[in-house]
């Protein structure tokens, strides 16, 4: 097995171009993501975010340029081979479940790769699914099915994790679990790429942010610097996430962008009793 579980791979797009039926979706994108980085890709609908990530798993082939995952040239591999290194969670992943129980569905990917059950139980636990592990997936509401699909990919313990809008439709508790799971993968050294419109979520997990617009990279910066900078975000059509906005409004030390960092920076502040 070429992918050692828990070890990340660098991901690289080199001068990548892609077009759908003659309409250019990516117009020369180059990004170099070192192993173990958590990268968030932002941008309006239609900017090319999903196209960029689908190139990583070989579902799309670039018209020009080169995509690589570690020492693999993606062009030389099929998606099912790439699955050993790249775990891809689709935006509407709740539509891919097919086993009779949640646990069996989560175990499908690991079995294909010849992995044990350890990853399955860990992923079920992390996403709060152990209680319903014997349920039929389609007896669960769609947001819960989405978590099942995510667990199915986490359980494959890929070195590179790619998630397309992982928090859309989730409730707060589900969202918190996804955040915690991604942070743990980051600690393990896994390379994480998230495409998301949810800036508060991005602030919680990302180290680096790339903004795409009309198929080109218009911003590429450390998360802390970009999300705390309202003036830089405004022309991109984005607003700072709440924690960054609080930090900026009160001039908090360390310019926090995460909820717990912001709360810590507020420690010792005195509060008025009511909201009046």
């Amino acid at each position, binding site marked *: 097995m070429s992918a050692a579980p828990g070890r990340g791979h660098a991901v690289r797009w080199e001068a990548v171009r892609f077009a759908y039926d003659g309409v250019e979706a990516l117009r020369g994108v180059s990004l170099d993501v070192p192993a173990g980085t958590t990268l968030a890709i932002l941008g309006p609908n239609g900017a090319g975010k999903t196209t960029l990530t689908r190139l990583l798993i070989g579902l799309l082939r670039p018209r020009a340029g080169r995509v690589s995952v570690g020492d693999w040239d993606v062009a030389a591999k099929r998606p099912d081979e790439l699955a050993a290194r790249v775990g891809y969670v689709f935006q509407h992943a709740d539509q891919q479940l097919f086993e009779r129980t949640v646990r069996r569905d989560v175990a499908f990917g690991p079995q294909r790769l010849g992995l044990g059950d350890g990853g399955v139980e860990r992923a079920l636990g992390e996403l709060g699914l152990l209680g319903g592990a014997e349920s039929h997936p389609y007896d669960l509401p769609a947001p819960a099915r989405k978590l099942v699909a995510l667990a199915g990919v986490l359980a494959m313990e890929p070195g590179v994790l790619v998630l397309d809008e992982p928090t859309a439709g989730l409730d707060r508790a589900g969202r918190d679990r996804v955040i915690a799971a991604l942070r743990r993968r980051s600690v393990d050294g896994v390379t994480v790429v998230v495409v998301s419109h949810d800036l508060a979520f991005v602030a919680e997990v990302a180290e680096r942010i790339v903004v795409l617009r009309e198929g080109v990279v218009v911003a590429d910066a450390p998360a802390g610097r970009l999300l705390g900078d309202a003036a830089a975000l405004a022309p991109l059509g984005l607003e700072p996430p*709440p924690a960054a906005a609080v930090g900026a409004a009160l001039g908090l030390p360390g310019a926090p962008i995460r909820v717990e960092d912001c709360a810590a920076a507020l420690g010792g502040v005195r509060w*008025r009793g009511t909201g009046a």
Partner: protein
Amino acid sequence: MALDAATFAYPGARTPALLDVSLAIEAGTVTGVTGAVGAGTSTLLLVAGGFAPRLTGGALSGRRDIATNRIGIVFATPWTQLTGLATTVRAEVAFGPASLGRPRGSVLAACGAALRDLGVEHLADRDPASLSGGELQRVVVASVLAMEPELLVLDDPAAELDPAGADALYALLPELARRGTAVLVATPDSERLARTAERVLVMEGGRVTRDGPPAAVLDDTDVARIARAAGCPAPYPLDVAALVARVVR
């Protein structure tokens, strides 16, 4: 729309999805509904809109009065809400008013107004199948608005939208209320509910456990979480301005 001690169970379910809910929704207001997955928010919308049990099956007890038959519903997943019969966005949006047998001119006028409201006039001649999820969701909302509903229920309508699109959609809801529509919107996005709704219902285990203005019932926006973690006494501020106002400097 009013419910009095309404309890509803889906066919074959052992426990009711909605339990002893009493509430009234007035015309001209935006009411938010929030709660964890499985708390019953979607079911409340189906019952309030008169769709359950009529189309879902199951059993409803208690009293329900719906003072209009012009009711629109929007779900989070746009592709389930297309007729599948239209090859242009215009035809898709016109489908509703056309099915009421209204004259052609009036159908096209309603269709045009709805496309403008959602800012998707430029998509009128496109094939719905060629649109992105975000574009499609706005077309779906326009399709429902073209019916000029008096009661509009929306279930996480911005899940497919980018922040600008979601903001525009949520900004439209009070505008619809001003035109006299009763709007009922469910979402886990408490930030946008706090900004949009005059009243919020919080649900747990099929019951409405809190009901009031957002500032009184919501406590899980990111700002509220920051304030709570930093020792602020309840009620927690929901947005940045409210938090800044609570800090003694």
